[in-house]
């Protein structure tokens, strides 16, 4: 009775403010679209610039439409111009990045799944502290480990190699992957595990038969997070590799900075898009999981 009274007075209230609402809504959309154009502006500029010739760039403005679908700067950015020395292009570095990302994502995700599993389902004394111990690794500024890491890679004989970068990214990914899996597995009822244990199932059997089959969402979140982080990394790439072993972000930066006679902005923009496209595709296809990864470390519960 009281409930219905409340909701009817609520509706009256809504009715009364209909006109103010309409004005407000127009204002709302205006602001939202304004910001949307601010966010979309650089991407738009990148795309149209990459399709223009240098002549068009000098004559038009940032926003002006390209005269046609001119893909030449894309070809140059990807495969070069075909004259030997000094001809830098992204193709080999793109593959370097792939060769680096795939194993690093695999190893760090696997280790994170295992530690997350132990920390929630095989709890031991002091496991909270072990978790905190690992978690702190999420936050250290990497500058504090660059110098010893450079020496260690040298001693191991894997400095300036893709293998070295795989090691670095695997290690510094573990705190994040552990956090993701631990927070996911903690909501899986422990009774399931206990029952399985009584039935005589062992450590690995429980993991593969009970936890792994329900882990698809968190695996997707973790893989996307790690893929984005490692693909986009510049600090490790630029510190621990140069020349032919460099990943794509480093190559892109070198390409843009190299001051050959004439600056070719169209090639620069095409290169930037090529370096950004893998993560952008992942984001568009699996945005939900991407956002979950971003926020799950931050907003818990």
């Amino acid at each position, binding site marked *: 009775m009281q409930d219905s009274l409340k909701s009817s007075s*609520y509706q009256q*209230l809504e009715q009364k403010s209909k006109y103010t609402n309409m004005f*407000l*809504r127009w204002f*709302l*959309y205006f*602001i*939202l679209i304004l*910001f*949307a154009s*601010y*966010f*979309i*502006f*650089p*991407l738009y500029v990148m795309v149209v*610039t990459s399709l223009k010739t240098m002549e068009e760039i*000098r004559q038009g403005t*940032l926003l002006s439409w390209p005269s046609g679908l001119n893909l030449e700067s894309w070809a140059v950015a990807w495969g070069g111009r075909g004259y030997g020395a000094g001809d830098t292009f992204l193709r080999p570095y793109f593959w370097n990045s792939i060769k680096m990302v795939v194993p690093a994502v695999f190893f760090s995700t696997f*280790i994170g799944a*295992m*530690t997350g*599993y*132990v*920390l929630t389902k095989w709890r*031991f004394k002091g496991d909270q502290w*072990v978790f905190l111990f690992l*978690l*702190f*690794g999420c*936050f*250290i*500024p*990497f*500058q*504090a*480990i660059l*110098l*010893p890491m450079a*020496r260690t890679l040298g001693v191991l004989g894997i400095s300036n190699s893709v293998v070295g970068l795989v090691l670095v990214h695997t290690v510094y990914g*573990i*705190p994040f992957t552990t956090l993701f899996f631990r927070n996911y597995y903690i909501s899986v009822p422990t009774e399931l595990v206990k029952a399985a244990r009584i039935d005589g199932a062992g*450590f690995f059997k429980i993991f593969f038969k009970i936890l792994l089959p329900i882990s698809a969402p968190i695996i997707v979140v973790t893989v996307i997070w790690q893929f*984005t982080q490692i693909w*986009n990394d510049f*600090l490790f790439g630029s*510190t621990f590799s140069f020349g032919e072993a460099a990943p794509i972000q480093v190559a*892109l*930066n070198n390409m843009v900075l190299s001051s050959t006679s004439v600056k070719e902005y169209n090639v*620069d923009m095409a290169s*930037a898009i090529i370096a950004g496209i893998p993560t*952008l595709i*992942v*984001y*568009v296809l699996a945005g939900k999981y*991407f956002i979950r990864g*971003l*926020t799950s470390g*931050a*907003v818990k519960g």
Partner: protein
Amino acid sequence: MFKWLEKNLPKIVMAPAVGLIGWFVYGFVLWTLYISFTNSKILPKYELWGFGQYEKLWASRKWLIAVDNLLIFTALFLIFCVVIGIILAIFLDQKIRAEGLLRTIYLYPMALSFIVTGTAWKWILNPTLGIQKMFRDWGFENFTFDWLVDREMAIYTIVIAGVWQSAGFVMALFLAGLRSVEDEIVKAAKIDGASLFTVYWKILLPMMRPVFFTSFVILVHISIKSYDLIVALTQGGPGISTTMPALYMTQTAFHKSQVGLSAASAMMMFMAVAAVIIPYLYSELRRENAR
């Protein structure tokens, strides 16, 4: 033997992760700390030298500029990201058409690397062919926007690009926070005659305190570590006017070969991050234990 293995299997599985992090995080930080107390140049030396590197660091004009820039950048980056993030989150929370599309647009920069976006912004902000030319071609003959090559103003171009990259993230955090509030609270307030503005200002935003806290921690963390964006946009220039601590550290270590000094700067960064993160982790853990 087999029994023992079975009993300790969980710990054995944990061992690699704990070992790797122990060595590569804690061990390495301690090594850097130790080196910061030595007079290491190109190669590390191990005899202790006291606080000499720290004295040298805080007497260095470049480091002071870097710290200054960090303070300016952090303050503006925080304010703009949080204000834009909150506005977008609140507006998007009004049952907006095409919300999914707008959200995707606001957040996509987070998927790109700072090198990619820095390259784009560098092109947009360059005075000869970028925004300045666009406005001049539109008839604003005297329009000037050359911050990128202006010593005084270049740091603000980094703010522009940084905010563009991260504001969507704050929006996502606040939107998630607002969505987790019960509808009933808002309805009840409206029946009591509260305007939408009052509902947000007096009721919802104060409830978002944990989200403010989280955003603060994450944004400060991003800004202390910011490196890629500066490399791509200004390389610390014009001159050294946009140097920041992270850039100072790598330049001192790998171009100037002052290993001890760069270790000292790395430790200063480490302490700055720890000062923000440790209270955060402490409160997060307390919240979790309270549940």
